[in-house]
Every structure is written in structure tokens, then in C-alpha cells.
């Protein structure tokens, strides 16, 4: 499998990364080189193999259903590029 210009634009859009025409031009051969190399995994017979889910056997723990934090609004907002009146702000999303 290989990617073309349209596919690179599509995945860049899915990944929310703006790309210029020149960047797409450069990425197509670069990504195809990497994807071509990855293709060799297809040689491995995995018909009777389960995909890895955990490298070290471990159980998912449950904790008590209680509040463990809160009251840290200012700390949460401290690094926001733009915060107003206790909220994160973003460009208008509703017309």
C-alpha cells in the first residue's frame, strides 16, 4: 500500500495539522519509504496469534468511587493560552 497526495492531505486533516503544497510534495515519498519498509510485517504468519494487549500481566484496579481532586480551577487554567473569567476560550463555534 502506498499514499498519494490526496491521502497525505486527508490524514493531515484527520490529524489536524495544516500542511502546505510543498510539505505534501516532500511527505509523499518520505511516508511511502517508511510504509514500504513496514510492509515486511505482512510476511509473518499471525493466523493463530492474539494481538498483544499487555506486556506484563497486570489487573486493572478499581478505586473507590470518590472525588479525589477539585477546587484547582486556577491551577488548571494557569497555562491556558487564553482564559477569561474562569474559562478556557476558543474562537466562536456557533453562528
Amino acid at each position, binding site marked *: 500500500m502506498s499514499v498519494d497526495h490526496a491521502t497525505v492531505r486527508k490524514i493531515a486533516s484527520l490529524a489536524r495539522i495544516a500542511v502546505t503544497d510543498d510539505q505534501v510534495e516532500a511527505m509523499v515519498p518520505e511516508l511511502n519509504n517508511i510504509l514500504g519498509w513496514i510492509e515486511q510485517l505482512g510476511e509473518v504468519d499471525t493466523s493463530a496469534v*492474539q494481538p498483544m494487549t499487555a506486556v506484563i500481566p497486570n489487573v486493572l484496579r478499581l478505586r473507590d468511587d470518590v472525588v479525589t481532586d477539585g477546587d*484547582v480551577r486556577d491551577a488548571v487554567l494557569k497555562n491556558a493560552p487564553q482564559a477569561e473569567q474562569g474559562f478556557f476560550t476558543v474562537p466562536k463555534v456557533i453562528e
Partner: protein
Amino acid sequence: MTNLTDLGIAAIRDGFKAGDFTARDVASAFNEAVAGAKALNAFIVETPEIALAAADQADKDRASGSLKPLSGVPIGMKDLFATKDVQTTAASHILEGFVPQYESTVSGKLWNAGAGMLGKLNLDQFAMGSSNETSFFGNVISPWRRNNGDTAALAPGGSSGGTSSAIAARLVPGATGTDTGGSIRQPAAFTGISGIKPTYGRCSRWGIVAFASSLDQAGPMARDVRDCAILLENMAGFDPKDSTSLDLPVPNWEAALSTDLKGKRVGIPKEYRVDGMPAEIDALWEQGINWLKDAGAEIVNVSLPHTQYALPAYYIIAPAEASSNLARYDGVRYGLRDLPDGANLQDMYAATRAAGFGDEVKRRILIGTYVLSAGFYDAYYTQAQKVRTLIARDFDQAWETCDLLLTPTAPSAAFGLGEKSDDPLAMYLNDVFTVPTSLAGLPAMSVPGGLDALGLPLGLQIIGKALDEQTVLNAGLAIEERAGFTARADKWW
């Protein structure tokens, strides 16, 4: 008087306890070394005042008889660990200026143990790289140079390149690293120091900027094996805030160090003899085998048949996890925001991420997005996770006939900056010996074994069974004693 910056972790801890010097003397000496080494670009942020404050506290604690395990020891912190009130960037533009309001579990443990922070160490951006050339804050330079008069700047390895460079140049006696596919072991090998990646789950990932969560694991880097054991004891431990943290006691690795390997069987995997590997690395590997035999171990040949598929599987799994983990950088909650005139919310996300991520990070996010996208998920991602099962099974089968494995750490000595940075694949191949262990979650360490013909360090890797860091450390110490590696980079910076 001894030059204090020539002392390692154990020597500082013990000398301080014995009253040979004050913690302030030690911190001041290292602060001065850090300030005088700007040419290496090993630090993103220097924190001399924090190191001094911890030192003053240690001096008080010594006077009052309440010493902690790392009292008086200043260290470096890879800039992937969130440190409260100190900028944490993952070497990216998108996190430039981010000042965490919390402390990562591992760094918090080290400070609680009495250690002080000399600064935040440079790295490959989001820990993605093997040469420290992807940092937004510039390349880290290795203190090592070739001995043929060539003054070309060499890579300190990556992603923990600031850590390796700073330790090799004696700017810090030890520091933290993180290892996703070799980011502790390969830089340790390139700079003639030691470093261990413990079993996945030993060290909490809480507060470490996430790259590939099923692989990321913190570990120590230092000048010798004992110092690694000391630091690891103070980094590891159960943390309820990390769902993959192992709820197990932390062994006393330092106290149990032993170079007697009688009864231990060391496996030599034939698949690690790759084409084009320099003869010097092959020779060092042979030497390592003889050193371990000398320590009482029995050598057995083993096979890890899926080794060649580890790298391609890694370059599906790690980018897939990265594309998901890095979705959080959206220009809303923290970090950079790029809001072009008239942009809507979607435009803002795309512009922010285009401006904030470096080329290698974008490349991996795009690959990860592609392999997870509808129609390709099974062919790429599921297949890679199945191959990962087979790689882990290879190790399980090897453990039927051996207790640890010995391999070279990297297929070459340190290369020059710029030599591989135009070819992502060539760079990826540098992790050929370290990635399989990461995929299987096993503990592994690199120790220096000798120098190549150009006077550059070469490392040997020891891989152990899950949770058996002790045998890994012991074999490392057995090699260290026999290798007698004392070479250091001549100061030019």
C-alpha cells in the same frame, strides 16, 4: 581536594554523609560545571537555585541527623518529566513556556529522597529520535570527539541525549532518562556511561509527557552500575495514578549487587549478528561473552526468530500511540496557540499543531493516523500487535534455556550530527538491538565495554527476565569490573 564533579552518586552520598564536604560545595561545583558547558546545549533550563536550596536542606538534615537516601546528591532531570513551577517542554515549541502545576511521580520521589535539581535536560522532541537532532531547542553535542583530529560534532544519542551528554561531561553525576525504543540505552552506549530501562510498570508514567504509553518507561542514567541501582531504587514503586504501574515492593538492588554469576546462563541471540556491523562491535561482544564466563556464567546460543520484525512493528505501534497521545495539544488548554486572522476552531487546531510540532513529530503523527485509519487498522496496527506477541514469545522461549541475554547496544558508535538526519529510516535502524526488549517490556541496560579505533565508546546490552533487574545489574557490574572503562572525553567545551 578531590574535584567534586568527578564523584558519582554513591561517592557523593557517602562522602557527604561522612562529612568530607558539604552539600552546598557539591551543588556549587556542579552548578559551575553546568554554567560553563553551554556549548554542549545539554540543558533547556538550568536551575542552580533549586540545586542550592536542596543542598542547604541536606546540610541542615545532616546536622540534625535526618539524612535521606539521596541527601546531598544533585541530579539532572530529562525535560519530559513535569516539574512543578519549572518549565517543561518535551523539547517542543508547542509546550514552550508550559509551567506544570504538579510534579511527576518519579521526579517527586527523587526530591523526597533528598536529591536536588541542577536543571531540565534537552532531548529529542517528544522523545522521538536517536540523535537529539529533533529538539526545538537545538542539537545536543556529545562531549566525545574522534581521536583522528576530526572535530566534527557527534550525536550524544537519543532521545535522552541531554542526559547522556551531561553525565559524560560530568555536569551532573546522574540523571533521569526515559526509554520507549532505546532512548536510555543507545545514548548511554554512545557516551560511555550506564543506563537501565526497568521492567515496564516499575516506574510510574504519571507526569511524564506521553509518547507511546505501552512502551514508555523511565529509568536512571549514571556513570556506573551501582549509581544506576541507587537512582532506580528511588524512582521505582507503585503509583495508583498510573493504571499500568506494578503493585510490587521495590527491591534493594544496591544492597544485593553481586558480580558472582555462577549458575547463570547467558543467552547469545544469533539474530543480533546483523550484516554490516563493524568488526569492533563484534569483537567487543566476544569480549563481553568472555567477561561473563569469567564471572562464572555459562554461555548458551539462543534464537529470537522474529527479531527482524521488531523495528517495523515498533514503527507502527509507537506512532499509532503517539498520534493518539499528542491529540491533546490543541492550543486550548496549555502551550502554544496559533490563531490566524478569521480562523475558526478547526483552523486554530491545525495552525497551532503545524507551528508547534517539528518535522519528525509530524511524520510520526501522520504515520500513526494512517495506520489507525478505517480500512488500514487491521493490516497495520492489528498485525503489528500480533507480531509483538510473537516477539515477546521469542523471549519467553529463550528463558527456557537462559537467564539473561548479552548483545551489543547499538550497531555503530556515535555518528556525526547531520549524518543520518536526512534519512528517517537510517535513523530508525539505529535502534535495531534495543527495540525488541521495549516491545516485550523487559528490563535491559547498557554498560560501556570499550572504545573503537576512533576512540569512541561502545556499549554492551544486558537483557533480563521481567522483574529481574537484579540479574541485569549484576551482569552489568561484572562487565564493568572487567572492562575497567575509565576513558572520558577531553574537555573542549
